[in-house]
């Protein structure tokens, strides 16, 4: 045990770790929002609800189908992603010719429906989800205790974020995607099925949210409100980072998580609001966001 700025190292690194964990979720969710926004020009208000669905799906798989965490981690993104595909086909595709605000309003309505249905069936209190046996316990690093599961969450979300960045920025598929974002008509003329690409992009963004939900299940309780509280913070993260850059979304997500964690150590009263305050400052200095391009 030693002290840094008068704070015991355990407390400081503990909050730093929590910050990194929260940052992982901010990064995964804002990445999903950015991917969806890039292709559909829609802000997916249902993102938080879909994250919550991911956590619940993992809970159901464990308790009703006997499938453990690792199966959930693979299956749930596909399940909730498929749900996203249905939503895009049924609803969102009717809105592309309208003002973008309608997309926000529609997905807000969907978020209310999803959250309401889950609250009716499971109440407002959380349901527990155990840490998978292989990741129980932790490492004593001398200056702090590092639970294995938390280390796994940080590593896994970093991996997923970087793979997503790689696919979008460095592969042929990603090149098509970026081209379709810039000029869908031209890309269609090259014989690429853009509507299908849009549908799958939405499905992928939703799957990312569900993946985050599965990873969150053992850390936070599985509860119907877990998404709606998070999504507003993620919106602020997106405003700070700007949605123009994939890497920007990842860096901003993790960075803000860490800042929030440190605020909890040094100035706990502001820990709920620090991200919003940073958003206000960024808007004053760089209105387009840290990584954004001026529209």
């Amino acid at each position, binding site marked *: 045990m030693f002290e840094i700025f008068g704070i015991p190292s355990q407390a400081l690194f503990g909050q730093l770790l929590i910050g990194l964990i929260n940052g992982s979720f901010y990064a995964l969710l804002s990445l999903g929002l950015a991917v969806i*926004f890039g292709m559909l*020009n829609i*802000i997916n208000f249902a993102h938080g609800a879909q994250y919550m669905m991911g956590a619940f799906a993992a809970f159901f798989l464990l308790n009703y189908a006997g499938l453990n965490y690792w199966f959930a981690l693979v299956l749930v993104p596909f399940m909730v992603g498929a749900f996203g595909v249905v939503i895009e086909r049924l*609803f969102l595709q*009717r*809105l592309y*010719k*309208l*003002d*973008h*605000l*309608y997309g*926000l*309003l*529609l997905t*807000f*309505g*969907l*978020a*209310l*429906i*999803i*959250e*309401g*249905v889950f*609250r*009716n069936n499971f109440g407002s209190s959380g349901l527990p989800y155990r840490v998978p046996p292989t990741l129980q316990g932790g490492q004593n690093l001398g200056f702090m205790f590092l639970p294995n599961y938390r280390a796994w969450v940080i590593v896994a979300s970093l991996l997923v974020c970087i793979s997503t960045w790689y696919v979008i920025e460095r592969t042929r598929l990603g090149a098509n995607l970026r081209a379709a974002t810039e000029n869908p008509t031209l890309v269609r003329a090259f014989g690429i099925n853009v509507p299908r690409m849009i549908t799958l992009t939405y499905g992928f963004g939703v799957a990312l949210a569900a993946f985050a939900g599965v990873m969150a299940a053992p850390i936070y309780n599985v509860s119907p409100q877990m998404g*709606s509280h998070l999504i*507003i*913070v993620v*919106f*602020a993260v*997106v*405003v700070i980072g700007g949605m123009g850059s994939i890497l920007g979304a990842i860096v901003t997500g993790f960075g803000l998580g860490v800042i929030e964690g440190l605020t909890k150590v040094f100035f706990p*009263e502001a820990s*709920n*609001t620090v991200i*919003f*305050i940073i*958003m*206000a400052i960024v*808007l*004053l200095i760089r*209105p*387009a966001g840290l990584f954004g391009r001026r*529209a």
Partner: protein
Amino acid sequence: MTTAATPVTAPAAQTSSRSVVAAFVVMVVLLLIAPVFIYPLFLMKALCFALFACAFNLLLGYVGLLSFGHALYFGWASYVSAYAAKAWGFNPEFAILAGALTATVLGLIAGSLAIRRQGIYFAMITLALAQMMYFFAVQAPFTGGEDGIQAVPRGYLFGFINLNDPVNMYGLVLAIFLAGFLMIYRIIHSPFGEVLKAIRENETRAISLGYKTERYKLVAFVLSAGFAGLAGGTKAIVFQLASLTDVDWPMSGEVVLMALVGGLGTVFGPVVGAVVVVAMQNYLAQAGQWVLVIQGVIFVACVLLFRRGIVGELANRLRIKL
């Protein structure tokens, strides 16, 4: 990006405003006789929310700015009015004014930040700022945290009209609502309002015509926040309560729903929408969380099938302006 998208509301047909006058007279008469048949507290709630929705519609319906954080102005005005009436012993009229003034100042601060970004970002920023002030309300000592400010005295209007008498209270709420409604109507139909509509239709063109659109947007935002505050302050006096519900994000969603159901960019739409939504909440109070689901379904249905809203649809059928 914005050129291909159709504006939020179609430009209204420029027929004579006689239909508006007639509708206004009908509304006033209905509101005057309604307390005989309908529980006054329900009516007062509906009127407060109707003014709130009109204030919101001023922004979305006439400038095309979607604020997803209007609970901030409504809720904080409600807190300030309640606190002023209870702790400082303000007369109700001054308590309500203090609330409205607070909301105006908050609107100036939040608005000058939010107008720095357009479209979807504007909505996200207003929502995030509102959430920030929600957390302040949770932590600040004077808001009473989870309990809110309870047992706010209604007091005596101008020092001699007892507001504990439901007739007097209803009269005050009706007067405030009608004053707010008429002022908003006046703003919309002034030269200033015409510029707002020009910004809604095509901001780039408005800029090229020499209008400093940011200033117009900010003034509209501040006005909207002020009227939302007027509604919130009145609500605090009527219900003798200010609580976290008033500043939380579902409240911001509800006011969007009211304006959307009634008809964006129509004069009477928000009033009808507020009555519908408040009535729905009252009758479905036992249904618990299903209210959330039903609101969600209405949102989806309105966006997909019914974008004009009730009044917009009616005006379109009858080919009049409402």
